[in-house]
């Protein structure tokens, strides 16, 4: 294959998704620190004798060595995972907590969708995703709050952060009462398009707190504000992604823990 060099390169990455391939292989989708989103084949990892299959389960932070061209030429087929070391396997912390597992799935799918081009490095998205999984595993905050904070900040990295402290249309500063997803966030009475939502002031306060990482305010938010916030964040994200996230409707928001 002219111009194609298969070489070994190393990076640390978060495992976003695994898909079965053939008899015993898997295609692993990774969000790496220096090479952006990657897809690589892990051979034989579904066999019980695999020496690193367990390290390539979803949501793990791993250090890997990959065989392929780091510049993105895939003339020799998909890249291959040759070695894996675990840095922190967050996935196993969600195994006994179904709501957190569903939230982690939504984080992983969002990370994949916010990095549409393979091998385009985005260290901010990598660090945000890693931080979100770490926070989810630490169980210091409700899983849905961590998810909504991740979605809001992820949209910020993608350039679609909703306007919260100013009017999305005219830029007038202040806390506005109406929220319009097509307009791009909170809107003032003069700019408010028909059909805008009117969330409770506490909901907008919660969205601002989640965007800024003010967990004191976020943790104290009432269940009603949390529900409304999740709805607005999901609607805003899906508007910009055009195609809905498959995992978001399956996020379990019903447990008592979410109400704490």
């Amino acid at each position: 294959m002219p111009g194609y060099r298969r070489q070994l390169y190393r990076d640390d990455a978060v495992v976003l998704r695994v898909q079965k391939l053939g008899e015993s292989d898997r295609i692993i989708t990774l969000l790496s620190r220096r090479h952006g989103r990657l897809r690589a084949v892990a051979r034989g990892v579904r066999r019980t004798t695999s020496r690193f299959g367990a390290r390539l389960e979803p949501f793990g932070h791993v250090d890997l060595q990959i065989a392929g061209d780091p510049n993105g030429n895939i003339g020799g087929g998909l890249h291959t995972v040759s070695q894996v070391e675990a840095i922190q396997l967050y996935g196993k912390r969600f195994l006994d907590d179904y709501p957190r597992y569903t939230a982690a799935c939504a984080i992983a799918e969002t990370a994949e969708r916010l990095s549409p081009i393979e091998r385009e490095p985005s260290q901010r998205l990598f660090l945000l995703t890693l931080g979100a999984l770490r926070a989810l595993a630490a169980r210091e905050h409700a899983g849905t709050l961590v998810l909504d904070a991740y979605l809001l900040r992820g949209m910020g990295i993608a350039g679609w952060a909703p306007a919260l402290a100013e009017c999305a249309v005219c830029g007038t500063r202040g806390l506005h009462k109406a929220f319009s997803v097509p307009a791009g966030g909170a809107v003032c009475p003069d700019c408010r398009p028909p059909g805008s939502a009117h969330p409770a002031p506490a909901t907008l306060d919660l969205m601002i707190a989640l965007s800024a990482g003010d967990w004191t305010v976020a943790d104290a938010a009432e269940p009603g504000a949390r529900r409304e916030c999740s709805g607005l964040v999901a609607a805003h994200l899906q508007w910009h992604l055009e195609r809905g996230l498959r995992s978001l409707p399956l996020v379990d928001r019903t447990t008592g823990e979410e109400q704490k």
Partner: protein
Amino acid sequence: MYEGAIQDLIDELGRLPGVGPKSAQRIAFHILSADPADVTRLATVLNRVKDQVRFCTTCFNVAESEQCRICRDPRRTNEFLCVVEEPKDVVAIERTGEFRGRYHVLGGAINPLEGIGPDNLRVRELMARLGSGEVKELILATDPNTEGEATATYVALLVKPMGIDVTRLASGLPVGGDLEYADEITLGRAFEGRRAV
């Protein structure tokens, strides 16, 4: 590109999982050169599979009648119910010869990334079976990966309030392997699940 029937055969074979265009071509030419009796037998079996094989109405394993062989067997106990993801898992457990209870095939595992939630599996049918009160122990034998563990956690959450014992298959070291070659997660799970001897 070939003409007519041979190209149609290559196209159809290429739609099968794990069969690429080259393999499809190789299989098509093998069929072309095979004995006509062998090809007729293959075609008959393919038709029979689609006509006669269905899912068991009780456990959703593959069957050729209303109920599968295991559900019809009166020598098996109804007190133990083993939950698996796919019919091939039933075969794997049956090969051990250790289990004399019944099965329930969920039809997959919860995987939100693929849009598969509890409503896409046969969880509701499982709950209906457990409602009869015959089952004393529910054994969760889903795959020991993230999706399988999440599915087991979800089912356990639903079933525990019913007062039924819920157990999970042990996971750990493969028989015949060397300890030094075990990865840290498997070895950790083996430690967690250690038992008195």
